[in-house]
């Protein structure tokens, strides 16, 4: 909200304050300065809650309360207007009462439309609205001053209806109906919009923009002035759909109170009579519903509950009165107050307390440590597990990356990709279905920096949808650990070995064993299995793991040795078929005797002397300290004997 300093001073005395002090005061009460003061205007952040803060008077009221200075209200014309003759009344017909809450009108005759006086032109221009003529300027001035949009139409341009009367009919727009705005733009309407019409012709797009047809110009002598109150949600939807944003919409899509129309029309009447001369005639105030003042309780006990802080009764009463609340009664328990009609944001008692605390100053509230004991830890196990995975991979030399889950829609996708309905960016209009896709794009960052080998990973989610898009249950977020290896100097086969051993060590470190893999239809990747449960997939240069599934299978690894012993160990070199996984050998030796503590894989060798289908592996078996070397050798022999039954395994001499 832009607040010209000169205009602000109309309502609140700021003579003894510096610009910084005024800016700080605005910031404290909730209107933070958005841009530096430009010498004339404060630019304040508006958070869309307070419709009255879209008016200079509304901002001035809170500022005055905070500074404890008087608020000077602008003059209004409260006397009754002249009674029109029956045929002079402009009838108001509302055909869509679900949209219109109030439509307050007055008629002015014999006015002189001309250029506005300098002070009015300057104020509007400082605010940022160009001056048109005195009537249009007055409606804009009152809108900025009080927050109520208004609209004036030239009565001479109204056509008479079949009964010979002039009337305004408010109805829903017809499909494809058009309006030429006062700026000359043609808008095509649709039935959710509502319009003001005269003799069937659309003159105004309700709550959004006026038309050219009945616009006020220097030839105008008689006008009908309206201040309406409408369903803000409709105005929000229609203005966004038609992509119209202006000062009127800015206010009408907030919660304005119907009573504001009366205050605004009285203020506009004062200015019209002052600046344009002419006569004011009563006309219809279409206001079918009575709005009762909102009475609320303010308990002292509630103030203590929220803030544990005592503001004196006198101070509370002063703050509330300055903000426009009316104190109905007061006792030892607290206050009964009437909320000012323009405070449509006040919903609950805590909002009133909020007013008291902010005007009293947040800085005055002390700070205090929480006294209660910490509650039970409810951190999900998966969160902790993914942290463990990150650490395990970093220890193995992998770098963590986080990539944007928003990607460009894949036209060839099988239909399970989630596409966003309203993304502004065609490169970011869908959610990823795999992380490899975005992680792969990181690799050039390394090669450009002459880093030719590396290990990258990301712990994140992939997103899919299958079935009825309106059903939330059809959306799936899968937690994934994606790992990618690259090495310019290694062949895919060599890289594949590296990938497998990385996966093996990672699993060992997180306490997983007995994994197997199955080649999938896609020759590029194999499925990782634990029993018959899919844990992920492996490719020559990386793997994808489903972390929630891993969590269910992983076991705690106790690697602490508290009793230092000197275990025996024996290194054994075996010749085995290439197709036999080393894991089978390790498992066989491990299960050969309870005296075996662990079996380590040391190295692998393939050479012509072994034949094409054979390889040799070197393992190291660790035994309990009390195991004698003869017994240890017997255990190894037993294991190999068992292995020989199913595979061609022999000790390499």
């Amino acid at each position, binding site marked *: 909200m832009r607040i010209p300093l000169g205009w602000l001073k109309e309502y609140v005395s700021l003579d003894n304050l510096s610009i910084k002090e005024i800016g700080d005061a605005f910031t404290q*009460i909730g209107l933070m300065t958005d841009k530096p003061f430009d010498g004339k205007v404060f630019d304040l952040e508006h958070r869309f809650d307070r*419709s009255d803060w879209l008016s200079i008077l509304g901002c001035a009221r809170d500022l005055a309360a905070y500074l404890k200075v008087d608020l000077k209200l602008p003059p209004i014309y409260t006397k009754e207007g002249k009674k029109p003759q029956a045929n002079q009344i402009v009838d108001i017909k509302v055909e869509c009462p679900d949209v219109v809450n109030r439509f307050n009108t007055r008629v002015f005759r014999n006015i002189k439309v001309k250029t506005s006086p300098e002070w009015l032109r300057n104020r509007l221009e400082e605010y940022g609205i160009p001056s048109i003529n005195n009537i249009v300027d007055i409606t804009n001035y009152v809108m900025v001053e009080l927050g109520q949009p208004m609209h004036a139409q030239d009565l001479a341009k109204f056509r008479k209806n079949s009964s010979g009367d002039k009337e305004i009919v408010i109805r829903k727009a017809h499909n494809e109906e058009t309006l030429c705005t006062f700026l000359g733009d043609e808008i095509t309407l649709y039935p959710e919009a509502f319009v003001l019409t005269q003799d069937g012709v659309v003159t105004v797009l309700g709550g959004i923009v006026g038309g050219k047809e009945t616009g006020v110009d220097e030839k105008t002598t008689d006008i009908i002035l309206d201040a309406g109150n409408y369903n803000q949600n409709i105005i929000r939807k229609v203005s966004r759909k038609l992509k119209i944003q202006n000062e009127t919409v800015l206010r009408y899509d907030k919660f304005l109170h119907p009573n504001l129309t009366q205050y605004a029309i009285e203020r506009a009447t004062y200015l019209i009579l002052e600046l344009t001369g002419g006569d004011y005639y009563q006309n219809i105030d279409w206001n079918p519903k009575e709005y009762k003042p909102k009475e609320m309780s303010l308990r002292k006990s509630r103030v203590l509950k929220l803030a544990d802080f005592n503001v004196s009764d006198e101070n509370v009463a002063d703050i509330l009165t300055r903000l426009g609340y009316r104190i109905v009664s007061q006792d030892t328990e607290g206050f009964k107050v009437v909320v000012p009609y323009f405070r449509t944001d006040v919903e*609950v008692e805590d909002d009133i307390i909020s007013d008291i605390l902010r005007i009293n100053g947040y800085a005055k509230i002390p700070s205090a440590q*929480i006294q209660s004991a910490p509650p039970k830890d409810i951190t999900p196990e998966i969160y902790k597990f993914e942290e463990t995975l990150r650490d395990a991979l970093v220890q193995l*030399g992998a770098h963590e*990356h*986080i990539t944007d889950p928003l990607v460009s829609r894949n036209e060839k996708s099988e239909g399970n990709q989630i596409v966003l309905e309203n*993304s502004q960016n065609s490169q*970011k209009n869908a959610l990823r279905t795999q992380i490899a896709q*975005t992680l792969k794009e990181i690799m050039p960052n390394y090669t450009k920096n002459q880093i030719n080998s590396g290990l990258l990973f990301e712990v994140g989610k992939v997103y899919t949808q299958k079935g009825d898009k309106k059903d939330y249950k059809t959306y799936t977020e899968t937690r994934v650990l994606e790992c990618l290896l690259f090495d310019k100097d290694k062949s895919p086969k060599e890289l594949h070995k590296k990938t497998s051993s990385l996966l093996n060590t990672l699993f060992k470190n997180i306490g997983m064993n007995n994994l197997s893999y199955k080649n999938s239809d896609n020759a590029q990747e194999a499925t990782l299995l634990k029993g018959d449960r899919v844990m992920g997939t492996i490719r020559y240069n990386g793997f994808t793991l489903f972390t929630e599934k891993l969590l269910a299978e992983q076991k705690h690894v106790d690697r602490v040795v508290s009793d230092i012993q000197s275990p025996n160990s024996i290194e054994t070199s075996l010749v085995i078929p290439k197709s036999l996984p080393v894991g089978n050998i390790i498992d066989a030796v491990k299960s050969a005797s309870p005296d075996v503590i662990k079996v380590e894989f040391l190295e692998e060798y393939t050479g012509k002397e072994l034949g094409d289908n054979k390889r040799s592996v070197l393992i190291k078996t660790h035994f309990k300290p009390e195991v004698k070397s003869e017994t240890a050798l017997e255990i190894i022999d037993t294991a190999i004997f068992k292995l020989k039954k199913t595979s061609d395994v022999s000790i390499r001499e």
Partner: protein
Amino acid sequence: MSNIDLAEQFSVDLEEAVKTGAFDELYLKYLSKTHGLVTQKMKELPTFSPDEKKELGPKLNELKKYIEESIEKGRQNYQQVQILDADIDLTIPYPSVNTGYLHPTTQIIRQMNDFFRYYGFSIGEGPEIETAEYNFRRLNLPEGHPATDLQDTLFVNEPDILLRTHTSSIESRVLENYKPPIRVVVPGKCYRNETANLTNSSFFHQYQGFVVDKGITIQNLKWIMEKFHQYLFEDVSIELRFRYKYYPEVSPGMGVDVKCRFCSGLGCAVCKQRGWMEVLGCGMIHYNTLKTSGIDPEVYTGFAWGMGLDRLVMAKFGISDIRKLYGGLAYL
């Protein structure tokens, strides 16, 4: 071997040990209780005549003492030389090993988690594809509320299914599923329909926290914010400013600023002449939010705060573009 020979041999051995540092071995060679050369000589003493013993005994003791002292002195000198060795170059890096690196955002999240875990907070998690119910309605934002404009929503299926615009949606879910006392922080990904530039992206990270218990007041909120900022900025004298700021899910709401680190509060281009830099938003959890979640707001009160993480991460790591943070990095 006579004592003189022994002493001479020791001199030769000592010279060698001074170079290699093998003083333990030297000690054992001469003074080992079982096979030391001097020890052996001492063991032979009873075989000598009384006169010879008188002469030889003190000499052997002298030699033993000399050897002990020489070894100790030699050892001390050797260690000192090693430390002061002019060949040591502290600028030569350790031979390269593959050390991995955590993403800067993960590092900051962990740093913050450490702080809040210490104060008894759990870590909360939840879906990124969210319903309007948890993302807006339960946070006191009814359909069509003007404040919905504070967050430009990316819709998956308008109006009910969307990408969460803030981590507050987890607050809705935790409040629904757990009974107070509750202390939770939520680091997480969020999405908004924004055009990407240096500091804004449609994908970003937030760090949210909330507490619900009996007797929780705005004073507790101020206290934890003070401690958190002292920790975050590693400065116990950091100056904070609490001001009113509207957020739909809290009442009273607060904005928290730190005194501008660049101009010390005088006003500069970085802080838009404010003298203060906005860090986060917070407040007492709205009466309606607690009520909708089935928590009696007359019995329990709570506070919540939320902050963007990315700018903080970028500032700490000297990254100028958010798009680099999430896709444009490499670690050396």
